[in-house]
């Protein structure tokens, strides 16, 4: 992308800008191909009884009689000024719905990342300490199995076991946000965060293992060894600190993924997050809600990835030199 200058960070920003335009077009088109247009969506079977005049008036009301390009630009203009549309069912604006649901998803994602790191980094260190030996094989097999169990299956098993056998159901009286009731909120978040944490631990484990193995054979580690540095100091200061750089990148990617990918777990554990907002919108055929929410998720995903990339360059001077 030469058009955006030579500096890699500038180029990365330019790339993100082009991607965001593409994202908005794709999201717009997605709504246009919805079976039945907005009129059918709003009026259901009654749309068939509308007279041609009524239909025309409604088309003008929804703006669907204009050319596609001006519809797109009008929609984009609205989105850029914070007008994400209104839900016909709840009469809430999508902006305020998102302001309520997004913090729940972010909280869940942060907790899940913490659990994923707590499982993945020690696991990766353990695997890398004796590559090819029993502990490595065991952690590889464990992470492969964890990768293969879909999160919705794990969530379904865990939640039905807790409800039926243990009789513990923290969601019984509805969801409480972190500020409303921190104790109950954390109880409600524990299992979904654990399920998501288990599903993102394998890539973190693999990245940690690979990074440690690479760093261990670096010249500076050999120099440190030759200088007489050994034991914990070598492992932590010289190896782990450098190996964590790709792990941070991987965590950033996983965080972005969790913002939109947590929707199944949000659905099962009845957490009113942003993924559940999409699902509810789809169920109620509120395509304006779906469209805006999907756009918000995609934009955040692009921005989180951009931020991760830029941070990575700041943390690792070698990338800057290249």
């Amino acid at each position, binding site marked *: 992308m030469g058009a955006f200058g030579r500096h890699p960070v500038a180029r990365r920003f330019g790339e993100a800008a082009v991607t965001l335009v*593409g994202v908005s077009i794709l999201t717009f088109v997605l709504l246009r191909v919805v079976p039945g247009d907005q009129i059918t969506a709003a009026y259901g079977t009654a749309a068939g009884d509308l007279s041609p005049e009524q239909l025309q008036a409604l088309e003008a009301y929804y703006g669907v009689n204009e050319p596609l390009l001006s519809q797109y630009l009008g929609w984009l203009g609205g989105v850029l000024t914070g007008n994400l549309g209104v839900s016909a069912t709840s009469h809430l604006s999508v902006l305020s719905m998102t302001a309520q649901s997004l913090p729940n998803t972010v909280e869940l994602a942060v907790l899940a990342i913490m659990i994923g790191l707590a499982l993945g980094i020690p696991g990766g260190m353990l695997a890398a300490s004796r590559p090819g030996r029993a502990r490595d094989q065991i952690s590889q097999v464990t992470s492969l199995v964890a990768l293969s*169990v879909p999160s919705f299956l794990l969530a379904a098993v865990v939640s039905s076991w807790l409800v039926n056998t243990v009789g513990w159901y923290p969601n019984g009286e509805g969801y409480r946000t972190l500020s409303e009731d921190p104790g109950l909120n954390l109880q409600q978040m524990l299992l979904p965060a654990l399920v998501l944490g288990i599903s993102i631990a394998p890539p973190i484990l693999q990245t940690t293992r690979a990074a440690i193995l690479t760093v261990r054979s670096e010249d500076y580690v050999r120099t440190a060894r030759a200088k007489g540095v050994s034991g914990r100091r070598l492992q932590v200061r010289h190896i782990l600190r450098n190996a964590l750089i790709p792990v941070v990148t991987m965590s950033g990617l996983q965080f972005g993924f969790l913002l939109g990918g947590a929707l199944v777990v949000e659905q099962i554990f009845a957490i009113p997050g942003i993924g559940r907002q999409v699902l509810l919108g789809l169920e109620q055929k509120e395509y304006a809600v779906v469209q805006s929410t999907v756009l918000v998720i995609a934009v955040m995903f692009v921005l989180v990835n951009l931020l991760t990339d830029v941070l990575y360059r700041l943390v690792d001077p070698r*990338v800057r030199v290249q």
Partner: protein
Amino acid sequence: MSAAADMHGVPEVPTTRAAGRWAKAFRTPSGIVGLVLMALVTVLALLAAVGVGQDPAAQDVQAALQGPSGSHWFGTDQFGRDIFARVCAGLANSLRVALVSVTVAAIGGVLLGILAGYYQGVLDRVVGVITNVLFAFPSLLLALALAATLHRSWLTVAIAIAVVYLPIFARVARGPVLTLRHAEYVLAATAVGRSRLSTLFEHVLPNILGILVVQVTLSLSWAILTEAALSFLGFGTPPPAASLGGMVYAAQTLSSVAPWMLFAPGVALILAVVGLNLLGDGLRAALDPRGTNQ
């Protein structure tokens, strides 16, 4: 393009010894276990496809929600349908969706990726923007949005999954082509008068097949998971057709009265995905010795 895509080196897969490498894949422990699991899964799916055993659609309200027994090995569901028969039919559905979606994604993505990497220029930039845009959506969300807006059938689910995985194949194929286009034998083929297009398909494509086979195997497992997640959410393969995700959903809602319902579809799903992941691991060890493929 991300750093990961550019890190792909030239795969060391001499085509003449390809057969030996393939055999090697099935001598690693993970390759063998993966092959056995996939053979089991395929046989179960084929049983359903040719109609051996009980009818997965046959309802018997008298026998609804029965536990495992001699006549119903894994019990019956809320309509009295045999769960084992439905798991076999569900596996057949999973494999069908996965094969169709990955075939479409692989052919489309690889074509875009190798053409972009080989010809560079505007084509490369356009393909780059398309892959970036598709990567901007969390994969399940994009598949969900596509599947929910199209007419619901197993085929539209497969196409939605194909669209999501197409950019992955484009990236995986493009990386090595960037290096290979400067390889001496590629330059030599052009020098002796081969057209660039025939060089691409006769000399470049065969050399990235190893990486692609690994990617196909892993993508099949992701496609099975995505189809199951979509069906679980109610936007996948429409009922009354059997789908593993739909069965897990039904089992979860009925878990207080019929906990056994969760067992068979859950285990079948895990076996299929573990099998494909192990097979992919074995193939990667044999075909992609540097392990550059993430």
